[in-house]
């Protein structure tokens, strides 16, 4: 069995660990690039969102490289994500690929995992141990990323910070046990800290939106990097590990949604699927906790985020916080995003230093 899965930021690290611990061969597609995008766009429906196109590109590329099993997460809507797996299965079969398709649906999760374990031929204990190791890695990588983005705007040599982060992530990815992961993460964190320079505090911006666009730098034109280059501290609202903790674990789920709904009251009264409620929640909470601005990223034609985008305009007016919305698709050019980020950064710096009260 040669298993493959699509990319979403650093998710490949825990998944690779999980499958390798179970002695399953893994085919990881290259990081998202123009080739993946081209491949995905060629075969996906015109109005599907950029995440679907990239995911399809990843899967087709891996199938071409000899993968024979595709694993995907399902969902129960009403965001389109829950149907991605089935649609890409149909598209790939229509193109003539033959493979096993495993879709982890929330309703049949236990059965799916049981079948998978049976197929792989490992015990439950091995599986759980591998899962735990993967989870720890995901947490460590996300923690490091968080640290990285708070340090990056303050570091003079940004390229060096990037190299430090990459090395640390690679180290974590190579770990075989939990203590190793912890020490690798701590070392990486210290290295990042040492590059930080003491200056005046910079404007902070919350980056909100759907989980894929937030966590996959290729799909958001590396917006955080662009912000950091302009001397703005980006703060990503949803990390994959945080999402798993808040929205997947049944004992946290209810409290999280109650909190989100309380914040979103008056703006978005219902959970309308996807990450709309999360977006509105994070926008309101960051407006109330002293952030200087909000950047909203989402794929073109994303249904929930279009609603939240319209609602964000009201939040912007009522909470008096500048919001920049970026709808991203395969035609987005880097220069266009850069120009908008520069203009936005100028506005925030101006506001912070009271250069122009009218801004």
């Amino acid at each position: 069995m040669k298993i493959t899965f699509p990319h979403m930021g650093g998710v490949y690290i825990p998944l690779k660990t999980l499958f390798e611990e179970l002695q399953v061969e893994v085919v990881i597609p290259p990081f998202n690039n123009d080739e993946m995008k081209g491949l995905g766009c060629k075969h996906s429906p015109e109005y599907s969102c950029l995440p679907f196109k990239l995911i399809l590109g990843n899967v087709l590329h891996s199938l071409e490289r000899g993968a024979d099993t595709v694993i995907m997460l399902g969902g129960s809507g009403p965001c389109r994500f829950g149907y991605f797996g089935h649609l890409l299965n149909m598209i790939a079969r229509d193109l003539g690929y033959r493979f096993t398709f495993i879709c982890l649906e929330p309703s049949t999760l236990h059965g799916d995992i049981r079948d998978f374990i049976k197929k792989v031929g490992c015990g439950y204990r091995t599986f759980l141990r591998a899962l735990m190791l993967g989870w720890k890695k995901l947490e460590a990588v996300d923690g490091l990323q968080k640290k990285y983005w708070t340090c990056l705007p303050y570091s003079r040599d940004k390229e060096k910070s990037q190299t430090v982060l990459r090395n640390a992530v690679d180290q974590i990815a190579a770990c075989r046990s939990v203590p190793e992961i912890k020490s690798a993460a701590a070392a990486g964190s210290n290295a990042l800290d040492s590059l930080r320079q003491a200056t005046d505090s910079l404007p902070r911006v919350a980056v909100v939106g759907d989980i894929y666009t937030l966590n996959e730098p290729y799909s958001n034109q590396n917006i955080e990097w662009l912000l950091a280059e302009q001397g703005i501290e980006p703060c990503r609202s949803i990390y994959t590990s945080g999402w798993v903790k808040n929205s997947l674990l049944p004992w946290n789920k209810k409290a999280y949604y109650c909190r989100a709904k309380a914040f979103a009251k008056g703006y978005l009264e219902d959970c309308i699927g996807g990450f709309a409620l999360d977006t509105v929640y994070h926008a309101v909470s960051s407006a109330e906790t002293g952030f200087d601005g909000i950047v909203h990223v989402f794929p073109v034609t994303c249904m929930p985020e279009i609603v939240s985008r319209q609602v964000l305009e009201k939040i912007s007016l009522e909470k008096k916080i500048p919001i920049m919305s970026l709808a991203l698709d395969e035609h987005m050019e880097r220069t266009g995003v850069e120009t908008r980020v520069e203009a936005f950064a100028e506005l925030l710096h101006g506001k912070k230093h009271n250069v122009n009260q009218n801004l």
Partner: protein
Amino acid sequence: MKIGIPRTLTYYAYKPLWETFFQDLGCEIVVSEKTSKGILDKGVEFAVNDACIPIKLFHGHVHNIGNRADFIFVPRLINLTGEKTVTYCPKFLGLTDMVRASMPDLPPLLDFRIDLREKWKARRREYERLGCLLGMSPGRIGHAFRSAKRALRSYRRRLSHGNDPERAVAELREHTGIPSLPSRPITLAVVGYPYLLYDDFVNAGLMTKLYNMGIRILTPEMVPERQLLIKAKGLPKDLFWTFSNQVVRSAIYYIDDSRVDGIIHVTAFGCGPDSMVGKLIELEAKQRGVPYVLISLDEHTGEAGILTRLEAFVDMLRYRRGEL
């Protein structure tokens, strides 16, 4: 008391239900005017530019009745079928919030939310709550609710016999002098959402054009409910959206139907669910060798463009039959 109902989106599917309900309660109903350029322009002004044309139109329709009604009815329909994972498009679910966020000077919106998954008899309770909001007695509300349900049933029956919501097909044929159908007419299944198929402005007169060409039209509403449920089993997983499920299932029904010469899928530019629906229908039609065309509508859709595409498609079907 005047209740404003926007003439778009769910209006075409549930109009007699709400109209009868409010009329029985003694309210006056103000339905927005038929879609026009002015309404569209207003919609574009108020709605966020990433939204699809039906959502923009909805804003336009709400604006249209804004100064003529005491209350505006913007229902938040979440689940009306009882199927566990089926709701409506997220944009429908957030419609109330969208309207509230972008249109400040409106009469109060009637708060109305139905989710049949939550509790038993949620529908009835919600109508009772709505009636109480308007200050009606329980007996009167119950009566209005029952007659509204009856009205919806007979409306659905009429739809399933091929009458479009605004006027019966036969009536259309009499008044506008459309030639009667030839003995073996080309039969096309026109699948799409009710707010696209039955709004003559948005679809640039697509249905009328097809009638004029002497084509028999089959719509999703004409497929018996039971058949839809049978066809649902052929899909790997149900879609999450009520209208989309209807479209996909009826399209598959028509693909299997030997009377049908071709499928026209009408969609709105940038429609999220339709990117999935369209591909599913396309793959299915390709497998069975049934001609399929996708017509996508947006703010700039012109009559000539639609007509050319329809004519080309119909000519191709005639050629297939050996009539050309």
